[in-house]
């Protein structure tokens, strides 16, 4: 059969048709599937000249009839037989008569779909339905029905249409107000003849926003089409498959690659923050390479709430996600409701995050480079006392504590040392390069990429850095029409160093910089000290700078708080971590009959990681020193394998559409590690250290571990039904067996069900320009968590209960925690109702409300200690609830030549622990030398709520102290002095004790929000991405309580100094007899609300005309500002403080950097 060039407007039908069902293949398959004719545009028509004989092909007969009857025919080329017929078109009075005669012998039918268009089809009711739906498409019918106008001033317009990735094939180009049009070829080029220079061209393609372009006398029109983000016709990835967004009945948030391009996204978590409703993300640290805390619809369990990550179908355990190069991500879907999650059963309770990596597309080879270089600086520093202020306050505190003056002449000390200035780097570098190759043929496609990312930290950057190399090889291949296979292979190599303690009161450069006194110089230059043989600088192995001067050791602040530069010097070049990660899967798919697909997929994660470190001999201060060199090396590994088998069957019966899915899965996670310490190695740094040195066995200590294997074996099934895309029904069930479940509860069943109603598809709903789409949906499901530890259901005996007899160290064995054979998974049920709507043609709204209940959370049963058990048995004891509201908005509009895009989202969340069984509360985070724990988890309260005393202001006079009595007239704080906190006597017993504490704040944000706004005009584009959270409190525990000589924040300048001076900041006194500072109280709490301009980007895309001579597809240059501004009342470094148990507790949090980047994207 001869291939024909086709006219545009009818192919548009084809595109729409295909786009509705299989968007991905639409462009490449268009030509092969459809041929048709159009009366117009003779210049584009290859008119048939084969009228020499009477017998003609049916196609050519149709071509003639088109002219004769002035109509269009739409048909799939393969339905038209190759037979030749003899027929006289002119003899028929109507086109219907003609078609009846022509088609009857071939069992073909036709239907008039527009005033001048007929669809020819074999007996497929599905086709009928789709054609019917096509007719509703706006604009097109108008174009179809319009008459051609004749004008003598014809000009030929050429051009090239592309999107931000490259040329677009199959874009419909129609002259507005006519039915005349064409399509772009595989290079995105088109050619069309217009009748006058005032014509307007309409460019449209499924998945892209339709653009209208006035010719304005030009002969060339080239455009970049913008993809229609999150339109209702998009496809979303769901567990074990994909679905049209219009029929999805679960609460699924999706982020596509197009929303991330050229943005500073270094980790998977960055993809989600601020772009997804219902997902709360907080950085665990600003240190390069740090993970972030991800919570889907709140904290699901006391025992860990990290979501399940499924990368290209392979379920991975949480952690180690930085192997994924975000530039390789095609889409990320967050399954938020239990019905969607239930297909992942016992591991889905904390949410499921599906990651799909990029695939190649058939067609021309594409090569893309993207790179940027940036410079980072801290966004803000703390305001700490200078030397003079410090000395003044220390004197005051010491005198108040009846000790002498410490500093004779504070004024002489001046500014002193700014320790923060010593450790922060205002020009930390960051750079990234990505190179990707993709392409393929109809039979085989590939995507491969190489990435390099290198970031230095803004704190102590010699010992805070991160380098990552990633590579990816994705391919998919068709062996024949019913057999295909593919593979996705991701690899990464990471090398990094962290500065040790972050967000910890136990030293590390940050804590030291905050707590060290400013009176200590950075290095000792005083010759008297340097020459004193009794000085520690001459008697101890102190650390020296490059000039040989010793770093100063504070005479006032000790313990773990050391000179940060000395600390850095001991670590610099002396340790690093490394990791290799391979996450891969291969699959084989078979389609034995139409609609049935069998698929088997084998996936793996192989992670190998370890570290090398060398501890030199050093003396940092009296309590922090090392006298024995130690070289430490460890090598650890994790091996996950996963085998998933699915069979899915999809059928249409009229307007009924049913999909069945059944599958099995087996998953196994094992790992282990070995490490060794080598002491007294005759070297002085890591570069020289090697295990090749011969050392006595006593100086070589090895340790290791094997993980208890974690296996999961599952069967699952799902049925999706929809009628006319109008009524949707979905049900799923998964059965999981887990090695962690007790012998009495080895298998768990996790059901889910959801319903949906596309209201606008009802015939009674009027077509409206205000409301374009409306979908209501509801779902309910039950999921589980098997994150419950190993072997808690059986009594085991462990070693390590050792004792020494004589000279012999004996290993003792005894039973561990009493077993709980009834142990089962934690169960989470969730009800979700949602509304999705499209209004005013370009505003998309999604709204969800949910109620999530976790029951049977594992808790150590608090056995009395007299039982003498070595460990507490665990039971399914506690319950928790999360309720929330979520809103997502999208808006796109073209105003003149300016393209506007806006996406925003907001979430409200309420977390409550509803029961802890018989346990009254669980203690939470603590701080060194705080008199009590800072937080508690208790029924009726949010998880880990801050707990402490209530201060009722400050005693201004001794009379205030004497007058502070309880009902019985007893003095409540008889030992207090003016300037001390007046603590609330909550239990009224006339004394301040542990029972006078209450809940004082919630560390978890109650609301999160984010938005992205983009505007582009010709080659210029601007993007703003902002994100925020709030409703939580932050506990600012920056100062070491047990070191009363530690430096203060400048807030201490406002301390109580006499009656009337302040009612909020107590007096300073050594020993703190009233526990003003050691008692946890609201004194330390600050609101954690913030809004952050996360990304501000300006880009310029070079004109195509310029690029063509360089044979480039695309060149874009851009400038990005990252974390430019943070609006917050919080006074610490950074209000975004993750870290699990220590969420929103600031003990010297490594802040996120403010970054400026310049980048370049090139497409070949």
């Amino acid at each position, binding site marked *: 059969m001869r291939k024909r060039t086709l006219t545009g407007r009818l192919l548009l039908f084809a595109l729409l048709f295909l786009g509705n069902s299989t968007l991905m293949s639409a462009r490449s398959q268009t030509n092969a599937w459809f041929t048709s004719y159009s009366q117009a545009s003779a210049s584009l028509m290859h008119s048939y000249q084969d009228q020499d004989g009477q017998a003609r092909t049916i196609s050519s007969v149709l071509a003639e009839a088109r002219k004769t009857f002035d109509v269009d025919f739409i048909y799939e080329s393969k339905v038209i037989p190759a037979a030749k017929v003899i027929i006289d078109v002119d003899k028929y009075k109507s086109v219907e008569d003609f078609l009846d005669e022509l088609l009857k012998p071939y069992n073909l039918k036709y239907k008039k779909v527009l005033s001048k268009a007929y669809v020819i089809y074999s007996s497929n009711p599905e086709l009928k339905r789709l054609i019917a739906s096509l007719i509703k498409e706006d604009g097109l019918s108008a174009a179809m029905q319009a008459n051609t106008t004749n004008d003598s001033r014809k000009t030929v317009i050429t051009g090239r249409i592309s999107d931000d990735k490259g040329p677009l094939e199959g874009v419909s180009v129609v002259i507005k107000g006519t039915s005349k049009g064409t399509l772009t070829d595989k290079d995105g080029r088109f050619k069309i003849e217009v009748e006058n220079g005032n014509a307007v061209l309409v460019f449209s393609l499924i998945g892209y926003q339709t653009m209208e372009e006035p010719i304005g006398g030009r002969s060339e029109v080239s455009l970049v089409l913008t993809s229609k983000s999150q339109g209702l016709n998009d496809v979303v990835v769901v567990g074990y498959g994909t679905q049209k967004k219009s029929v999805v009945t679960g609460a699924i948030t999706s982020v596509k690659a197009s929303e991330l391009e050229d943005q500073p996204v270094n980790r998977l978590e960055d993809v989600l923050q601020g772009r997804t409703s219902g997902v709360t993300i907080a950085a665990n640290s600003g240190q390069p390479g740090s993970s972030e805390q991800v919570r889907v619809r709140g904290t699901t369990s006391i025992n860990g709430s990290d979501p399940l990550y499924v990368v290209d179908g392979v379920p991975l355990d949480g952690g180690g996600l930085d192997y994924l190069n975000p530039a390789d991500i095609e889409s990320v879907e967050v399954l938020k409701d239990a019905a969607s999650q239930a297909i992942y059963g016992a591991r889905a309770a904390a949410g499921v995050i599906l990651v799909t990596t990029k695939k190649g597309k058939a067609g021309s080879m594409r090569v893309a480079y993207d790179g940027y270089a940036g410079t980072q600086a801290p966004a803000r520093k703390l305001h700490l006392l200078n030397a003079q202020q410090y000395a003044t306050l220390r004197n005051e505190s010491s005198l108040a504590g009846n000790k002498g003056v410490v500093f004779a002449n504070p004024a002489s000390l001046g500014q002193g040392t700014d320790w923060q200035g010593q450790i922060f780097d205002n020009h930390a570098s960051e750079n990234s390069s990505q190179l990707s190759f993709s392409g393929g043929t109809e039979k085989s496609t590939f995507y491969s990429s190489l990435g390099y990312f290198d970031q230095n930290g803004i704190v102590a950057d010699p010992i805070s850095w991160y380098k990552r190399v990633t590579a990816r090889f994705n391919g998919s291949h068709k062996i024949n029409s*019913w057999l295909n296979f593919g593979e996705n292979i991701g690899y990464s190599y990471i090398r990094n160093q962290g500065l040790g303690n972050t967000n910890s009161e136990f030293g590390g450069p940050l804590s030291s910089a905050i707590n060290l006194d400013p009176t200590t110089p950075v290095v000792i230059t005083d010759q008297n000290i340097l020459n004193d043989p009794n000085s*520690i600088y001459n008697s101890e192995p102190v650390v020296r700078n490059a000039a040989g001067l010793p770093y100063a050791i504070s005479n006032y602040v*000790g313990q773990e708080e050391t000179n940060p530069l000395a600390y850095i010097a001991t670590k610099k070049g002396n340790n690093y971590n490394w990791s290799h990660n391979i996450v891969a899967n291969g699959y084989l798919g*078979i389609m*034995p009959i139409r609609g049935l697909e*069998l698929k*088997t997929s084998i996936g793996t994660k192989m992670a190998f990681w370890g570290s090398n470190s060398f501890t030199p001999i050093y*003396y940092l201060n*009296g*309590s922090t*020193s090392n*006298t*024995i060199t130690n070289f430490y090396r460890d090598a650890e590994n994790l091996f996950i394998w996963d085998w998933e*088998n699915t*069979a899915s069957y999809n059928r249409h019966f009229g307007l009924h559409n049913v999909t069945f899915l059944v599958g099995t899965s*087996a998953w*196994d996670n094992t790992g282990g590690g070995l490490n060794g310490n080598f002491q007294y190695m005759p070297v002085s740094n890591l570069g020289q250290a090697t295990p090749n040195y011969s050392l006595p066995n*006593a100086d070589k*200590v090895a340790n290791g571990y094997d*993980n*208890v*294997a*974690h*296996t*999961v*074996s599952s069967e699952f099934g799902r049925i999706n039904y929809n009628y006319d895309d109008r009524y949707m029904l979905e049900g799923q069930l998964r059965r999981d067996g887990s*090695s962690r479940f007790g012998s009495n509860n080895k298998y768990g069943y996790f059901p889910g069900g959801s319903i949906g109603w596309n209201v606008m598809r009802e015939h009674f709903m009027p077509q409206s320009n205000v409301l374009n789409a409306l979908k209501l949906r509801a779902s309910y499901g039950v999921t589980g968590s098997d994150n419950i530890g*190993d*072997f808690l259901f059986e*009594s*085991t*005996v*462990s070693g390590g209960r050792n*004792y*020494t*007899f*004589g*000279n*012999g*160290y*004996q*290993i*003792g*064995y*005894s039973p561990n925690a*009493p077993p709980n054979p009834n142990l089962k998974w934690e169960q989470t049920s969730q009800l979700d109702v949602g509304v999705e709507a499209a209004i005013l043609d370009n505003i998309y709204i999604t709204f969800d409300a949910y109620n999530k209940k976790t029951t049977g959370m594992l808790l150590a049963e608090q056995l*009395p*200690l*007299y039982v*003498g058990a*070595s460990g507490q048995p665990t039971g399914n004891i506690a319950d928790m609830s999360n309720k929330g509201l979520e809103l997502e908005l999208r808006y796109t509009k073209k105003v003149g030549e300016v393209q506007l895009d806006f996406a925003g989202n907001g979430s409200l969340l309420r977390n409550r622990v509803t029961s802890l069984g*018989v*346990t009254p509360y669980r203690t939470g985070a603590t701080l060194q*030398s705080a*008199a009590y724990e800072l937080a508690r988890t208790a029924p009726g309260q949010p998880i880990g709520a801050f707990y402490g005393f209530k201060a009722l202001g400050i005693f201004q006079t001794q009379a205030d102290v004497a007058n502070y009595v309880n009902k019985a007239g007893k003095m409540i704080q008889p030992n207090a002095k003016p300037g001390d906190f007046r603590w609330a006597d909550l239990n009224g017993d006339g004394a301040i*004790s*542990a029972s006078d504490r209450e809940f004082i704040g919630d560390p978890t944000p109650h609301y999160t929000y984010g938005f992205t706004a983009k505007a582009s005009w010709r080659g210029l584009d601007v993007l703003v991405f902002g994100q925020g959270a709030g409703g939580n409190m932050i506990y600012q525990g920056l100062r070491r*309580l047990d070191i*009363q000589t530690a430096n203060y924040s400048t807030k201490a300048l406002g301390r109580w100094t006499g009656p009337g001076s302040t009612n909020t900041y107590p007096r300073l006194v050594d020993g703190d007899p009233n526990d003003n500072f*050691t008692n946890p109280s609201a004194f330390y709490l600050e609101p954690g609300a913030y809004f952050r301009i996360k990304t501000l980007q300006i880009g310029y895309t070079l004109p195509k005309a310029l690029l063509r001579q360089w044979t480039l597809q695309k060149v874009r240059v851009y400038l990005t500002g990252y974390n430019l501004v943070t609006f917050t009342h919080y006074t610490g470094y950074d209000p975004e403080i993750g870290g699990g148990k220590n969420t929103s507790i600031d003990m010297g949090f490594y802040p996120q950097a403010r970054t400026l980047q310049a980048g370049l994207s090139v497409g070949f």
Partner: protein
Amino acid sequence: MKKTTFLYCSLFAGLLLGAGACKKSFLTVSPEGTTLEDNYYQTPAEAFAGLVAAYNPLSWTVVSSYAPKMVLLSLASDECYAGGGSSSDNPGMQAWNTYTLQAATPNVPPDLWNRNFTGIARVNTMLAKIGEVPGLTSDLKSRYTAEMQFLRAYYYFDLVREFGNVPLITKELSQAEWFTQVQAKPADIYAQIEKDLNAAIPNLPATVNIATEGGRVTKGAAQALLGKAIIYENNNSRMQEAASDLEQVNTSPVYSLLPNYADIFDPGNKFNAESIFEIVHTNQAGKTWGNWPNFDGNVGVQMVGPRGYNGPTFESSAAGYGFCPVTLDLVNALKGDPRYAATIVNIDSLAKAGACKYTPGYENTGYFIRKFAPLAAFQSTVGNIELNWRNDEIEIRLADTYLLEAEALVRGGGNQTRAQQLLDAVRARVGLASVPATLDNIYNERRLELATEGHRWFDLVRTGQAATVLASKGFQTNKNEVLPIPLQELNNTKLVQNPGYN
């Protein structure tokens, strides 16, 4: 084509189904280094490992916090203050020092409680298992059983002295019994202690090979503990009985007073002739902070060292934590006594003389414990220094049993000449002249001879001196003789709080 398609698809479908076949075994995984209890205690070696586990709590110096028994008892008495870095450094210790302990006070009461009940539970487990260990000889079985009985007596002796009213548990508890235990009368606890010791004594060896078994329970240890327990029962009519138990130890050829007092506490001189029952600490395990809290070294040694110390003799690279500064009371009592130098070190005067530097901690007096001082000579070369001190704690030594026997003879109206000889022997060893064997002199001798070894607080309480001697610390009669029952033990149980702590 159709045929092959069908063939391949069938094969494939078979594979899919096959994946579901290997279920149960796939979900049964190996416990990796732990053993199911049902499969354990099946060899003599496993029985020995169970015995070791029952000894293990003896050496705990860190439980949920830093709570070495020796340190705690010193700071509770008039020998030392709490000290440390600040008034809030280790709140439980500060609270005992100031007698402000409450049920909810963290660490100290629960740690003492936990150590001893853990030991009792391990003993009860072993006693339940030991009858059915294949291949265990009857000799070993009876020796192990006797050791278990001694250990249970030892742990209960600590509990009854520290908490007074504790539940009496002599077998493994079933799940139904976890929350139903009630406190026994102290007399019943003592009865059980005596019963266990009397059962153990015949089956224990008189001596053990120091190199391989040093620290394991001997007949002498059991006899000494029995005599001591009877004295603590405070019944003058039984003092003669106690004296005769102690006499068997004191006249045994196995034991003798060391000529040089300081040698008793030398980690290089373990299991010496004066040591009757010794808690063993080792540096061989090379523990690091990652092993927290399972250290086998004596962390108490680290705790009583001066903070920020830099100078000779004392361990200098990890410095001490400054706990238990010695009170001037004790310093003055020992002034001029030949035992002073082995008991107390005056770091402050060394520092003032320029011989060293140190950072005065909270409640610093300048005087530090010398018997358990972290000396450079004994610092560990493996693991963290602070966690691997190998200084043993001698729970019962001959001078103690001499003085106890003397006391029993005086109180029970026994042989006063022998009482005088015993007291004289203790004094003569350090070159002191005889003083009359009155109770006051015997108690005073105990204070000086056994200073900072963990006896003083118990002695003050059992002899009724605590109320006056510890008044300045806040000791309240009829309350502070025992510690509060830890709050956790009262939740959901049938236990009741000790008087005065509600």
